[in-house]
Each structure stands twice: as structure tokens, then as C-alpha cells.
């Protein structure tokens, strides 16, 4: 089963305001390995080769915080989604 299909099983209350923000895009351009692009369980972060920037699909975020601590440059401004928004665990 593909990851996208797994995320589709989940219940989300989507927020228009992204709760994840790259602090300094220049840092990502020189980042070695870009751990955020593989450690995230929801694969929220992808590297856009053409635009040379990290794309952030925050809507699928599982709110675990892995990216916040896995980013060696502490370059992700990680907040909780606003109250009531984001993932809503059916089972948990």
C-alpha cells in the first residue's frame, strides 16, 4: 500500500494556515542529505529540484515532531496546528 493511500485513511480537519514553516530556505539548498525528505513518516517534505526548495505538504502531517528534531540545522519552525485542526485520531 502506498503512503498516500495510507494517509487517505486518516481523518483530518484541514487548516488553511500552514503550521510548518522553513525558517531559512538558503539553509536547505546547502543541507547535506536533507533528512526531512526521508525521516518524516508522512513524507511531508519533498525537494523541488527545479525551484531548489523544500515543498511542505503540511496537510498530511501526523504531528509527531520528527522533522523538528531530525533537521540538523533546526530550520523548521514547528508549531501545533491551531486548536481543533490537523489530524484527528480515530483509534490512536
Amino acid at each position: 500500500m502506498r503512503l498516500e493511500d495510507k494517509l487517505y485513511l486518516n481523518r483530518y480537519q484541514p487548516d488553511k494556515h500552514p503550521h510548518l514553516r522553513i525558517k531559512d530556505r538558503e539553509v536547505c539548498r546547502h543541507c547535506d542529505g536533507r533528512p526531512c525528505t526521508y525521516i518524516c513518516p508522512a513524507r511531508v517534505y519533498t525537494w523541488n529540484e527545479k525551484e531548489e526548495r523544500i515543498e511542505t505538504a503540511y496537510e498530511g502531517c501526523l504531528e509527531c515532531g520528527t522533522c523538528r528534531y531530525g533537521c540538523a540545522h533546526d530550520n523548521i519552525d514547528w508549531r501545533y496546528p491551531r486548536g481543533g485542526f490537523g489530524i484527528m485520531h480515530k483509534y490512536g
Partner: protein
Amino acid sequence: MLKFEVVIVGAGPAGLAAAYTLAKAGVEVAVFERGDHPGAKNLMGGVLYRQPTEEVLPGFYREAPLERPVVEQRLWILTEDDALTLGYRSRAFAGEPYNAFTVFRSRFDRWFGQKVVEAGALLITETVVEDLLWENGRVVGVRTGRPQGDVRAEAVILAEGVNSLLTQKAGLKKGGLQTHELAVAVKEVLALPKEKIEDRFGLEEGQGCTIELLGEATLGMMGVGFIYTNKDTLSVGVGVLLSHLVRRRLNPNDVLEHLKNHPSVRKFLAGAQPKEYLAHLIPEGGFRSIPKLYGPGLLVAGDAAMLVNGIHREGSNLALISGKLAAETLLEVRTRGGYHEKNLSRYREKLEKSFVLQDLRKYQNTSLFFNENPQFFTLYPRLLSLAAREFLTVDSVPKREKQRKIWQIITSHRSRWKLAQDLFRLWRVLG
């Protein structure tokens, strides 16, 4: 401005245990939860222990939403092709007073939240606490994400979970959290009819089991895989140390898929329908990672305090007990001088006297040890399996020769000296 005697951040096991204890004693207490109900953001593998839960909620298992009582625990050590298995089953675990249950946090915590409200606490959901309010060097409340959202309190308990933004901001966890102190866990819930679950796992009606999986289950990274039986679902997951994941450049979902497709695992999951896929961090740093647990008008409990015993798969019980002890500390000092820092240091003393810090102190070197000795997750599972295969293969080779051969295989991978050293050190950190 809203005002309470005590404000609790987070409606997980720690926060709810604290709120329940305080409300029962008649304290004006409010719990803030960012999800739309307690449990909406909470996750664990799924084992809840009966005795510590009863320390807070006597008789809970007669009415709480539970999945199955755990009558058997199994340990599987995997290599690519095989599995060495070990287990313990007891009838004593199948009936009252029970030892443990599989649960879903979203359901259990919602029920627990209702109990807390019935006890007299105010539960405020869909509200993120964004900051602590300080005055004259002490905490005097919290700032929530709501308009005019400041709330005053004489004491605040941070039970915000592993992603302890406020604990870190308050300077109680110097240097923040490091990748070797955290495991990333991902979990899938898979639906399977209950008869099939009972047939496949060899269970009596309504009974449950847990399987922990080591070795190839985590591709040799420090961590553990798990399969837990629920009523009509299975919880399947894997947790690995974040530092190892970063080093190996792996995605947690790929590690989980690898485990699900292992030849010894996949037949247990065949035909099961995926229902949910979630992720959570687990504090794995142990005793050495514990933040300062108190400040002026401030206490920290549960995952935010890094109170997890990874060796014994215990976390929710440490959260419940730390929440309860935090509440009891507040009850003690409120009539004896108030919530200043020196008084609140009694919380640490209470934790030291309980199993919580005694156990974490006992295992204080394990997380560093396993981080520096990956052979316990890579080489040793392989050697154990090679030894077992050789031992069980009947091929007309005399047994004495077989034993010699097994010993040769082992010592060709790890010298006698290293073996002795590993064993001795393992005994030192675990014994």
C-alpha cells in the same frame, strides 16, 4: 481573565490523572487539550497496565473502553529469513485482577476525560497552550491560542507530551531534545474479524496477546516492532531511534512495510484492512534525559518529563503515576506555604521514592549503551538464529561436533574476548 487554582496542559494519561486527583480533592482545575476531545492527538502502541491505572481509577476496567486483556507476551528475534521466538502465557492474566489490556488512546482518553469532568474539572478542548505567563519570576498562568486567551493559575502542570515545546521554552530541558533521545514510532491499525484474530494468534475468545519483534524487524536499528491484538483490529508498528534513522537515511513507513512483509509476519496480517496510519515520538533517553521536573508554580509530568522505560515497554503507567504524584504534591503544599519552587521540589522526591525514577535510574545507561553497541540489534540476532538453525537441523552430525561448529560460527563473527565483554556489559546495564 479566567482564573483557576491549577491549569493542566494536555489531556493525556499524565494530565488527566493529575486533573482527576485534584478535582476529586475539590481543587478548581482546568485541563487544556488541543484536540477536539481527549485522545484525538494521543497515540501509543496500545498496552495499558491494570495496576498503575487503578492507582488513579479504581475498577476502571469494568467500564472503560478496552480491547483485549493480554494473556500472552511474545518476543520474536528476526533475521531476514527466520524467527527465534519466546513467550509467556498465563491463565492468571486472563481474569481479574488482570495484568494489562490493549487499548486505543483515542477511545480510552475520551472516556477518561469524561471521568475527569464528572469529578469536577473543567476540560477545554480545541485549545493550544502557546506559552506560560510569568510574573516576578514565577508562573502565573498560560497563554492559549484563543482570542483574549490568557488564563491565570496558581500552579501549572505541563503534561504536554513528548513534543514538550513549553517545557523546553521554560528552560527546564537545557539544549532541547536530541535525535538519540527520541524514537520515531509509526503504527497501522488493521481490521480483521475477531474469529480470525483468535485463530491466527491461538487465543481464547476475547483474549489478547502482544508480540515484540527485534533484529531485522527494525533493519538492525535500535528499536522494536510490535503486533498487538485488539477486538477486531491489529495494531502493527515499529519504533526506531531517530539518530539511527537519520544515519541510515530511511523512512519510518518503509521500515514498517519491511516488517509487515517479513515471511514470519505477513501471514498474520494477510487480508487485514488498513484503517489508520499514525506516527508519534517516544522519549527514549531515559534517566539522563529527564528535564528539571519543577519550577516556581510549575511541574512537568509524563512524556514531557521523558518518563518512559523503553526496556520494559512502559510509558503510560509512568505518565499516570507521575500525573498523580504531581497532583498530590500540589495538594500537600497548597495549605503549607504554597506553590513556590522549594515546596514543589517534593514532586521529585515522590518520584524518586516510586518505581518511576527507581526504574529509570536502574536503566540509566541502557540507551547510551545500545546506541554505542549496535551489535545487539544486528549481529546477535543473526548469531542466535544461526545457532538455532544449526542446533535444530538433523543431519547425522554428532552433537558434540555440532556444538563445536556453532561455537566456531559465533567466534568467527565476534572474538571470545568481545563476547565476554558484551555479555558482561549487558549484564551491567540491565542487571
